[in-house]
């Protein structure tokens, strides 16, 4: 009996050490993540590359179910939606005429001035696999990755406007940090005043903008576009429209349909390596 008891004691100590080492292991991985975040995130992307296909056989049917229920729900609003669409179509026809006229005029003017237009932007389209699963981190996984030529930092848009940017690329998938994530900061400009500002994610669907000066020049309804500052983002991608909240704070009503993010386009941007620019400058000065 006594022997049995001491054996139990022994087992308990071993167990305690074992648990402590497991806790230390997790803490160690946490500290590694904290110290070298980019590398840890790369490890995470590799793990996700391996793990996500395993989730697919549950996620697939669930996704199907949710789209069915969405479809059924949409029947209820069908009549109303139709009426609204017809109304919009009527308005759009007028706009279309105006747009065509302006486009012609614009191209003629550009031609007259010999303006070089930005080389056309290229897209890669991906399917949204999953969201981050927590309300604190606003990000998505797309089913396109390094194999499809995706790079970190590229802008992600849906059919109407900016959604977020690529942060973390795996072989076959990539992570998109949404504009509304609290870590997201996007340089924007506000048309027609042309003021530069910063779009700051704060977990709400109407992220605030921070402007340094001349707030009075900005009106509700002004368009918010990416400014292209920092050379990471392409410029002139529509983000949303300015609104004022109850505290008179400026916020952006996003044009991207955050309720139904399914297919997203990643805009290919030719990122400029700072050293390249420097080299060019040096060469230029030498040849001059």
């Amino acid at each position: 009996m006594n022997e049995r008891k001491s054996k139990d004691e022994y087992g308990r100590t071993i167990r305690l050490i074992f648990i402590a080492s497991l806790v230390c292991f997790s803490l160690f991985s946490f500290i590694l993540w904290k110290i070298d975040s980019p590398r840890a995130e790369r490890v995470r992307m590799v793990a996700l590359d391996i793990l996500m296909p395993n989730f697919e056989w549950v996620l697939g049917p669930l996704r199907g179910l949710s789209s069915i229920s969405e479809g059924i729900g949409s029947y209820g609003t069908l009549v109303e939606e139709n009426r609204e669409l017809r109304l919009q179509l009527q308005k759009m026809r007028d706009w279309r005429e105006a747009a065509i006229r302006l486009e012609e005029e614009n191209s003629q003017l550009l031609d007259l001035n010999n303006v070089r237009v930005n080389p056309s932007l290229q897209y890669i389209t991906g399917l949204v696999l999953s969201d981050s699963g927590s309300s604190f981190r606003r990000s998505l996984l797309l089913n396109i990755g390094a194999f499809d030529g995706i790079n970190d930092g590229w802008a992600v848009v849906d059919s109407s406007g900016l959604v977020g940017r690529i942060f973390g690329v795996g072989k076959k998938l990539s992570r998109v940090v949404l504009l509304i994530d609290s870590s997201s900061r996007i340089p924007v400009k506000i048309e027609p005043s042309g003021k530069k500002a910063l779009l700051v994610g704060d977990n709400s669907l109407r992220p605030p903008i921070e402007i340094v000066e001349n707030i009075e020049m900005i009106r509700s309804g002004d368009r918010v576009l990416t400014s292209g500052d920092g050379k990471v983002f392409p410029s002139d991608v529509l983000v949303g429209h300015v609104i004022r909240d109850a505290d008179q704070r400026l916020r952006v009503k996003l044009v991207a349909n955050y309720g139904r993010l399914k297919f997203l386009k990643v805009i290919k941007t030719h990122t400029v390596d700072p050293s390249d620019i420097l080299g060019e400058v040096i060469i230029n000065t030498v040849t001059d």
Partner: protein
Amino acid sequence: MVNFQNIRPWIYYVKYLLICFFILSFQLLPMRIVHQEVLWPNLMYLVTVGWLIRKPSYLPVILILFAHIISDIVLLKPLGLWSAISLIGYEFLRWRSLSQGRLKLGQELVLVTSVLILLTFLQIGVELIFKIESPPIEMILLQLTFTLLIYPVVIFMLHSILRVRYFERSETVVRGGSMENI
């Protein structure tokens, strides 16, 4: 007979992994971006805790760690932080339930609530120390409340669907000797 005794824990292990897998899949579904006011309760915690209170010897610590690390990776959380913190809480609950046995529902609720609150504040503390951006405190509290409200449902599911119930006397006698090898 002997075979049956050996295979039984494995059934529980597989059940636990499957339920964790389903919880993760549901959380990953890309449909909740608009419904941000509805926060996901910490289901994995609830299932693990309910399990440990009912069947402390049928859930090895390594399995818990595995499921939690995967969840940290997939849910894009700080790697390993919640795993480490929650593991301490889990082992406390396991020790408690092995040494003191069955709880009344009220006692269980109080115990689970207080452990979760402690762990959450521990996590916030660590996040503050390491200067990790932690979500606003109201959101955390809201999630906490939501998690605790849903606990009875989780217990019910564990009891009726997964058949994770309080161990009976005979079971403890049979398994009593082999507890240290988990």
